[in-house]
């Protein structure tokens, strides 16, 4: 009876964690991989991993951190396996095609495509910064890289994006 109750409780906790964090996990994968279907596959695998290791989760905050880091790693693994994006130097990132953009939604989609074209590490740093609102030390913790490297990735990526958008006539008036 107690074992059944324990399983039921764990099931309820897991379902609650899925409900609370599904948007975060899915969006991290989606903005990194720029493919809804693949992002859902990655998100599902991350949650299944969580399910297997639920007893190791120490707190709500730990769960959030664990899910974030697991999603980051799985997304990068997935990108490498599919070879969806060859590793480009930052200055080789393609400019968005077509005519000057208006504001949302076209600019939003253009930005998502530009982000998706970045090399792995800057791409993930940008997603963590602007989707999750993490600051550089928090990003460094998730990506397990020095804070200075994170700051460099963010700075160079923003500079590149500004240049590419400016060439298309998009920027601050």
């Amino acid at each position, binding site marked *: 009876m107690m074992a059944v109750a324990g399983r039921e409780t764990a099931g309820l906790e897991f379902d609650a964690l899925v409900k609370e964090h599904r948007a975060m996990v899915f969006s991290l994968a989606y903005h990194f991989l720029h493919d809804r279907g693949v992002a859902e596959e990655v998100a599902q695998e991350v949650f299944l991993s969580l399910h297997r290791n639920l007893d190791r989760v120490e707190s709500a905050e730990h769960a959030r951190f664990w899910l974030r880091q697991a999603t980051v790693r799985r997304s990068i693994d997935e990108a490498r396996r599919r070879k969806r994006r060859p590793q480009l130097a930052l200055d080789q990132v393609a400019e968005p095609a077509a005519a000057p953009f208006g504001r949302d939604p076209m600019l939003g989609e253009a930005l998502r495509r530009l982000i998706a074209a970045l090399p792995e590490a800057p791409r993930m740093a940008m997603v963590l910064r602007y989707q999750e609102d993490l600051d550089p030390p928090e990003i460094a913790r998730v990506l397990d890289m020095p804070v200075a490297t994170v700051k460099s990735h963010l700075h160079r990526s923003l500079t590149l994006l500004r240049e590419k958008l400016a060439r298309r006539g998009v*920027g601050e008036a």
Partner: protein
Amino acid sequence: MDWLEQELKRALERKEPSPDFAARVSAAARRGRWGSPRRWMAVAASVAVLAGGGVGYRWREGVKAKQQVMLAVRIAGGKLNRVQAHVLEVTQ
């Protein structure tokens, strides 16, 4: 934040997966199904890294460091307050 960063925040807002996502995940968790063997091994490898030592250890060390920072700041701030209170006492 400048205009580009604001636009990036908008563009990278969290999105929901498909409506049946949660149900699929719950069902898969109950079944214990992991998909293709190759994918399962990749996941197992990730789990070994994440849960075996890396994430757990770093997490605990990070929480410990944070607690020490909070303690140190509390003591330092408290003592500074005390000194300021003494000065107020003397000057009033």
